[in-house]
């Protein structure tokens, strides 16, 4: 029996509740807590989108930091105020993006960042996703290195290692949670569709899925590209939230954090990534005073790493996920997909 999919109305109700919650939070919480809440929202978007590839499709991408960087730099460049462009030695926009005196509004700039991230995902994914095995992990990690290298060296666009500051502060709690809502909705719709069943079938057994007429490349690439889009948006939101971006912020460690959030929450679930993102950020800000007081920098990263290993060893389905009663492969050892 197939589970009945909740109706759109059900989702709308959630949306209204979320909006109410955000409104109340915005009224009553202090600025520090609001700051953390927005950050939780942005990381949730990134984690939910990573879940599409890493959770549902069973590919293991490590490229999220790169896609976020693309989104962040794109939307920054598109929205950067004209009056500051000269002082910051940033180029005017070329004609096809609106000409030298154009400044993009926030929403289209974010979408553009997402689209460029998708395009990048298409370029990386097309050669790599044809192959079996974990080539995607290495290639996408390599892509992170390539993108940070470009961000450091293309000084005329990115100002190199010193990064761009004075980015207009557009991101607020409403924008963030609106995008989170859109992301969750899109992922949920995709997963509960023909497409979603196809990628999950590929995850469980690629050969069997192929026999049923599912062409792996198409579905894998699509999930990778959609995931990259929302990563790009999350990057854009992040840039307009912290108001300064530097290349090293988008390093492997950013990807790692998102991966830990996903694993902790539970791969392949709708709520898991959000639970993971929220609880790990809560932990991070709870431990921050401790870390600063004792000057033990790196403590939080160590805790993240230990948590990751412990979860993998003892509760691989995460906080939210249910344990699958998959047959263990006979005698243990590798399965051949």
């Amino acid at each position: 029996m197939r589970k009945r999919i909740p109706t759109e109305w059900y989702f709308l109700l959630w949306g209204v509740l979320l909006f109410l919650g955000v409104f109340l939070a915005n009224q009553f919480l202090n600025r520090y807590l609001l700051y953390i809440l927005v950050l939780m929202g942005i990381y949730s978007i990134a984690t939910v989108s990573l879940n599409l590839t890493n959770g549902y499709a069973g590919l293991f991408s490590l490229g999220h930091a790169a896609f976020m960087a693309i989104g962040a730099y794109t939307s920054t460049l598109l929205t950067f105020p004209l009056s500051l462009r000269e002082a910051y030695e940033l180029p005017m926009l070329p004609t096809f993006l609106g000409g030298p005196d154009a400044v993009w509004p926030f929403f289209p700039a974010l979408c553009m960042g997402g689209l460029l991230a998708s395009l990048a995902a298409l370029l990386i994914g097309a050669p790599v996703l044809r192959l079996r095995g974990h080539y995607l992990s290495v290639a996408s990690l390599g892509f992170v290195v390539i993108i940070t290298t470009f961000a450091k060296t293309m000084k005329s666009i990115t100002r190199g290692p010193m990064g761009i500051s004075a980015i207009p502060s557009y991101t607020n709690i409403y924008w963030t949670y609106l995008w989170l809502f859109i992301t969750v909705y899109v992922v949920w719709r995709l997963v509960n569709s023909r497409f979603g069943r196809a990628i999950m079938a590929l995850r469980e057994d690629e050969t069997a899925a192929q026999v049923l007429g599912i062409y792996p490349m198409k579905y894998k690439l699509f999930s990778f590209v959609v995931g990259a889009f929302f990563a790009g948006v999350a990057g854009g939101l992040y840039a307009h939230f912290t108001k300064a971006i530097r290349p090293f912020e988008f390093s492997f460690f950013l990807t790692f954090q998102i991966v830990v959030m996903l694993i902790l929450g539970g791969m392949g679930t709708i709520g898991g990534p959000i639970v993971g993102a929220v609880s790990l950020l809560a932990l991070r800000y709870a431990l921050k005073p401790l870390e600063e007081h004792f000057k033990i920098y790196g403590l939080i990263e160590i805790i993240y790493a230990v948590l990751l290993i412990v979860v993998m060893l003892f509760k691989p389905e995460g906080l939210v996920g249910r344990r699958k009663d998959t047959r263990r492969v006979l005698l243990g050892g590798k399965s051949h997909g």
Partner: protein
Amino acid sequence: MFSWSYFLQQSMNGVILGCIYALLALGMTVVYGILRLINFAHGALITIGAFFVYFIFFRAGINLAASLFLVLGFGGLMGLLLDAVAYRKLRGGPEVALLITSLGFYTFVENFMKMVVSPQPYAFKTPASLAVMYRTPLLTFRSIDIFIIVSSLLIMLAFNLFVKRTRMGIAMRATAENLEVARFMGIEVNRVISLAFVLGSAIAAFTGFLWGAKYGQISYDMGFLTGVKAFVAVVVGGVGSIPGAMVGGFVLGLAEILSTAFLPTRFAEYRDGIVFGILILVLLLRPAGLMGVKEEVRV
């Protein structure tokens, strides 16, 4: 300007970097062949090995030869520990679980080193016996360069002999070929896997010393890119193939050094980008690698 002497000099640098990649790739390809695991923790062993030698040789004053044997032993021990603590329980589960755990282990070591040692890089002086300069009309080199090349070749030769000639080596190849069947044939698969980790990790720790002695600097995050590049070498050479790993290492080392040496200087900053560009090119044009055979799919 092109000159033969410059070309030779840079080629030698490329070969040396290639030796380092090849040694690392050796351990990674064996583990990947058996477990389909991209062992990110391999990079951590480079850092551990480098700092281990730094502390026992420079600080505690143990002599060089003894230090080198100790670092091999220590690396092997860490490999054994890593396998027993982090990986053994996950065998037979989804392959990706091992990958995730290895990422966790790498990050743990990196940040542990950052906290305990220092976020600043350490200067690693080349031991005096390895810092002797030799000048010839065409080449200038130090004894460390010779040491790296000779010791790498010896290790690779020994590893090859081990895999080809000994019972354990044959068991290892059989396990890589097909784990389940190997087990039916009475091979103790767990011991084979542990041994693969021990050997790979010992070599990686030793490579950490070579890196420090050659490039003069070690830091808490030195293993990350080096480790990932070593896996790129594995892919370039052909995944799962031992000769492929060595060839891949040399190709990658030469490509990295020569591209930096002969492209205009403003491209020098793109060095890491070039390595991963090569990876994507190889995946696009020849996914089985230079020496690999196409991975067959068994249902």
